[in-house]
């Protein structure tokens, strides 16, 4: 809980500073606060937030998924192909893409649970494998949606009007839906309780009768399916995808957002609200750099520095408290 408050404060602080510094003398307005900028920021938070929730599913079990960016690429290339080249109706095409991505997750789960391979290795190979296959499959062509995606594109580019000149971007609504559903699953259901228990102490969970293998597999499925959903939204947003670059490094954004939001890499720790705030902070920082800097060359550096600061601060606080002796009884 303290962690959530910390990151929320940081978010507000960065937003306030950015807003103050974005004052434009010519138009006498704050560029950051323009509805164009805010809508754009919220849209990007929605898009990347879905990926961070995906990553969190696997991190909570004590695993990791490095193939998220590659799965985004798979979804981003398959959706235009199914809509344009095959000519499937939009709902069927989208369902087919999500199914393929879920199967990729199942494959990861089988390798991790069945063969006991390390998640890092399985998904690192997946990262290389899926992008490589998609490049061959598309012949490195740019996969455009053209007119075929017209109706679907509302999912990525549409907005729900709130005031005369400001609307809530639909991807943000998608993230809210995904977030609420995940939050209920994690906090309120038996499956969620078991997921967190096995993430921290798999042996103890197994001896308590928890079906650890099945649950671990299902989290890989959820992760890849959500990454696929993210991939669909991304390609609907920009209208085309190129296999060699689409979704590059997105797994790192996704993982960084989750970790920044308090999901512990050792497993069994984290809240969806934190993940959403973490993803928001990542996008806010990138927005800040774009607004205030001459170029976005420093973007990666700033993001890296902020995450490092967050992790280091957390560790220092933890040591400080543990040095004060074993924790007392519950308050």
């Amino acid at each position, binding site marked *: 809980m303290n962690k959530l408050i910390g990151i929320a404060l940081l978010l507000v602080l960065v937003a306030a500073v950015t807003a103050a510094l974005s004052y434009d003398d010519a138009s006498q307005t704050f560029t950051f606060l323009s509805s164009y900028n805010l809508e754009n920021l919220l849209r990007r938070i929605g898009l990347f937030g879905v990926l961070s929730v995906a990553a969190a599913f696997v991190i909570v079990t004590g695993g990791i998924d490095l193939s998220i960016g590659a799965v985004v690429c798979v979804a981003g290339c398959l959706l235009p192909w199914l809509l344009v080249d095959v000519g499937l109706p939009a709902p069927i095409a989208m369902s087919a893409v999500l199914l393929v991505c879920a199967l990729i997750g199942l494959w990861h789960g089988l390798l991790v649970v069945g063969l006991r391979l390390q998640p890092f290795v399985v998904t690192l190979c997946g990262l290389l494998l899926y992008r490589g296959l998609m490049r061959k499959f598309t012949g490195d062509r740019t996969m455009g949606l053209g007119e075929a995606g017209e109706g679907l594109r509302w999912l990525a580019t549409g907005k729900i009007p709130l005031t005369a000149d400001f609307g809530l971007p639909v991807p943000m609504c998608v993230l809210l839906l995904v977030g609420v559903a995940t939050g209920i699953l994690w906090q309120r*259901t038996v499956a969620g309780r078991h997921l967190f*228990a096995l993430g921290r*102490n798999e042996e103890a*969970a197994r001896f*308590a009768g*928890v079906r650890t293998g099945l649950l671990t597999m299902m989290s890989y499925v959820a992760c890849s399916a959500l990454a696929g959903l993210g991939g669909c939204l991304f390609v609907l947003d920009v209208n085309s995808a190129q296999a060699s670059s689409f979704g590059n490094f997105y797994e790192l954004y996704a993982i960084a957002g989750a970790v920044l939001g308090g999901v512990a890499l050792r497993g069994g*720790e984290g809240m969806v609200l934190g993940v959403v705030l973490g993803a928001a902070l990542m996008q806010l920082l990138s927005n800040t750099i774009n607004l205030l800097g001459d170029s976005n060359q420093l973007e990666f550096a700033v993001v890296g520095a902020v995450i490092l600061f967050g992790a280091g601060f957390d560790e220092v606080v933890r040591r400080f408290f543990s040095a004060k002796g074993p*924790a007392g*009884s*519950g308050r």
Partner: protein
Amino acid sequence: MTSTQSSASKGVPDAALLEARGVSKTFPGVRALDAVDFAVCAGEVVALVGENGAGKSTLMKVLAGLHQPDEGGLAMNGGPVALGGPIDAMQRGIALIHQELSLCENLTVSGAMFLGAELRRGPFLREQEMAAATAGWLARLGLDADPRALVSSLRMGQRQLLEIARALRADAKVLIMDEPTSSLTDAEARRLFEVVKELRRDGVGIVYITHRLAEIETIADRVVGLRDGRNSGALEAGEITQDRMVALMVGRDLAGPSRTPHPPGEVVLEVCGLKTHAWPDAAVDLQLRRGEVVGVAGLLGAGRTEVLRALFGVDKRAAGEVVLEGQTLRSGDVRGAIASGLGMLPEDRKSEGLVSAMSVRENVSLPTLRARGAWLDRGYDRATSATAIEDLLIACSSGEQQVSSLSGGNQQKVVLGKWLAASPSVLLLDEPTRGVDVGARAEIYRRLDGLARAGLAILFVSSELDEVLQLADRVLVLREGAVVGDLTGADRTEAQIMMLATGALAPQESR
């Protein structure tokens, strides 16, 4: 249900809740259990006693379904059962409260309490009901904790009680408690005894395993002894005294084996007021002379390993001074310790003693690597490993063989060889023959004896009393981090050591 006197000779009363009949279990190289009988009735506390390695843990794991017996079997309420695993055992009402607690620390108290058996409405948790039920169990055990607090915020004693509560929630009929008080404060331990007595009144059968004989005197209805994996007898209520329990543990031969002592030389290692972080209130003083072999005995957790680690500098010392041949060793400085002439064979060979993926040659030369300019001196490497292989009769195809493919005994010889290559003046050994077969063991004893005669001082920790008595000129007994006995000559007997180690005998006067 109180007919515990009837067949007392075998220590197996009738109408037992849980029973082991002629159970045997063999691990590679060790017969851990040999036709062991054991039983616990409803409303009875049975204590299981034995030295380290007598087979207590193995029996406990068989009873809890973690190991399958090779021969013999289990029975519940008189009928034979085969436990399919720990979950099966749990469902039949057998709960193991382990030394290493098995709680998920990230859950709340009520979450941990109901893990795997959540109260649910469809897929959803019924948190309110679980918290309320948990509060009831906690109150019954006198555990003052909020059901919604995190497990990680509980003290060890509270977690222990929580595990018991969890077992009772799962309707346990038999509780197996392994060293339940090892991490408890005195007050927490007293609370635990009250709980045990209440459970006994409620008809729960309790198997109680501990090294603390005083606890058994206060709590047990019956004592079953194990020695070398066999039943060594039983004590009924009224016969339970610490002396008789020690006799069950070590047997009747109370005389130490004869051996020729090494002639000790001048003092080479001097330790003053050494305090470890595990036992910050107990100071250890000791002197080691050239050519002397000193054994350190004590129970698990008595701080033996911690003393060796602090001497060698793997752990920082909480306080105290270590002087090796006139040089003061800095705390936490392994490089300095090695340079001054200290070597250490650690307790866990695989993770601390060897780099498993490297060859014999690379392991042997690791502490003493020599360089020619920027390059490794491979000639020195080969020569050192060849010497070690020849000297210690290490059975390997060549120095290039990977150490992980060697037998336990040969691996241990590699660790020994790597320190001998450094020609130390003091060698620290922690469980030097753990997992080592009889042949290699004799080889290692012979080598150590020879080294001591050549002037090496040896300080070693062993849980096997035979080994301590066979190797050591002098035995230091540790209890709760402090030296409670310094035995030489005819005083070095198993009984004497056990009495001091368990606290059945008051600490000796300081020398």
